[in-house]
């Protein structure tokens, strides 16, 4: 199986270490993974602002880059969900459909496709708060949602529990939105910042040393808030924790 590594634009530019960790993790699990060099963005910023139709060039570029992959894996639930729901290319509809069906968020890929039961030995002796990102949770079904009266589960939590020494903390609001919301974070600045502040407070109150999650955009929001508060609490993408000893 040929897997294309999708590194969303803002991770590429601001968080290369997350891309590196994702690549290393997949390689350690013996996945045949490549990074198509001409990829850029999933198109979500335009679409969420009401301009889905303006993202055609961006969509086409995505299809061009990944069309020959059996599966695409990315370390961002939000971008992956957007691709699953909205990737279109009028000139290559079959390829776009194939990609919509075969694009995975990292934890989803590890759990559902690779069926990982055990990770290559990794130790991370810290108290960790898991931020559950909305698009991954409610959109991709990476974990059960508190609103639904259905059996509880969490794919990211299951993976984190495979890490030696890691202690997951319990939160008061385990699936409250962080307030990032794409362009919402600037157009509704005051509200977005307050949501970020409240989310961070929940983790801090419950003794997190590190906040993690599967979506770097939410983590950027939490990190930006923590940094402004000069908090010692660190933010790490789940891929970084799952490869912590490399």
């Amino acid at each position: 199986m040929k897997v294309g590594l999708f590194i969303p634009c803002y991770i590429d530019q601001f968080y290369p270490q997350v891309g590196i960790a994702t690549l290393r993790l997949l390689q350690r699990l013996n996945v045949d993974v490549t990074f198509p060099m001409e990829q850029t963005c999933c198109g979500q910023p335009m679409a969420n602002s009401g301009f889905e139709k303006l993202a055609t060039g961006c969509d086409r570029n995505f299809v061009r880059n990944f069309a020959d992959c059996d599966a695409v894996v990315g370390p961002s639930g939000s971008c992956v969900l957007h691709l699953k729901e909205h990737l279109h290319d009028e000139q290559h509809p079959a390829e776009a459909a194939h990609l919509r069906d075969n694009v995975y968020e990292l934890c989803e890929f590890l759990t559902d496709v690779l069926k990982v039961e055990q990770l290559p030995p990794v130790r991370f002796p810290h108290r960790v708060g898991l931020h559950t990102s909305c698009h991954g949770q409610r959109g991709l079904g990476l974990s059960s949602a508190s609103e639904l009266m259905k059996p509880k589960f969490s794919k990211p939590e299951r993976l984190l529990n495979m890490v030696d020494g890691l202690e997951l903390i319990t939160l008061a609001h385990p699936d409250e939105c962080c307030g990032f919301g794409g362009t919402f974070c600037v157009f509704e600045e005051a509200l977005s910042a307050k949501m970020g502040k409240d989310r961070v407070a929940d983790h801090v109150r419950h003794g997190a040393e590190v906040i993690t999650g599967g979506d770097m955009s939410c983590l950027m929001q939490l990190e930006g808030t923590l940094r402004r508060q000069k908090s010692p609490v660190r933010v790490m993408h789940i891929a970084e924790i799952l490869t912590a000893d490399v």
Partner: protein
Amino acid sequence: METPVRTTHHAEAAAAFLRDEENVDWHNETLWFVRSKRDKAAAVLPEWEDLREQASRIKNHTLSRLDDYLLELEKNAQQNGITVHWASDADEHNRIVLDIMRQHNATQVVKSKSMLTEECHLNPYLLKHGIDVIDTDLGERIVQLRNEPPSHIVLPAIHLKKKHIGDLFHQHLGTDAGATDPQYLTEAARIHLRQKFLLADVAITGVNFAVAETGGFVVCTNEGNADLGAHLAKVHIACMGIEKVIPKGEHLGVFLRLLARSATGQTTTTYSSHFRRPAPGQTMHLVLVDNGRTRQLASPDFRNSLKCIRCGACMNTCPVYRRSGGHSYHTAIAGPIGSILAPNIDMKQYADLPFASTLCGSCTNVCPVKIDIHQQLYKWRQVLGEAGAVDPAKKVGMTGMDFLFSRPGLYRFAGRAGRRLMKLFPSLANNGSLNPWAVHRDMPKPPVQSFRDWYAEQEKK
């Protein structure tokens, strides 16, 4: 007493509400408490998710044959002795209500909770025509005395604290200055409202469910104020949006259970009153209102918002609503559901509302009739974008973004240049007046190398 926020843009109104952070935290926690009660009430029913599915299907089916069910309702209601009126919009609805009043020489009206009459702005209309209309739901009476709209469809005065109400009642009802005891204040309101009930010529109620099969309707309240009004007055006018019809009485078993548990976490609403026919000597009117609903019905993307039973659960769960307050939505129905209903009424005026969301999807999950609320928010954004109702600067920006993202070479160049700029001028990137992000948050520290540059290097090795 602070003056209520009246502005036409959600972000500005939210920012104003957020200035009193202590109050925001209290508002947030109070509504979250209601959401938690809902969770507990839902969790004890093993069939909860099945009930939601059934409710959704009954509503979908009804909407697919809405014309038939409405005519059936009309026929059966008429046979029961109810006079049925049809109103195509808010104006016609208001005129019909006023005409009925005039026929009965009525000047005093008591009204129980009805979001439809809020939507139609019935109160100011009646007042303008010399009719004294009193809201009898305690929360609604409070906001009426404050001369402001409800901030929540189930909990109209949830934005107010006991102190505000004490001050208000001192001013209007003559209670002791500084009183905050809920028992005392409620008693004062009860005495005040009793007089109004006794004087009223006409009682207006909303309708939670109208049953096509029987021609009757059900009104749910926790205070019994709808019953008291309707039983004492000679004339009962019930106003309903046309989407409130359900086919059969047996379907009430599904909806009444979902409504109370979703709204407040009660197992059942205190009073679920069934009205079938006027009492001897009384006249009963049912006003069926369209006001944009058939337009919504004609649109496959937005049709199923008409399934709404107005439980308010989507507001209680919404992380935005809880922190921005109901008035920030500047529409009769606030919160997530209001944000998908309002643009159908006036796209320009409410163009900001579908953007007042992070699309977290909690509303969709909590909705007892399974309306895909956050998906409709997304779809409204597309409609507004295409209709040119979004800030033109945004469109230029987004066109530029696509230009950039469809040209990998340019994207690489821009990324490198941007990171270099941020490194050279970190204070610029973290300057709140140039970059709204940075008012309360730090920007990420730009790395030396992008992932792609690192990867290219590895490949070479």
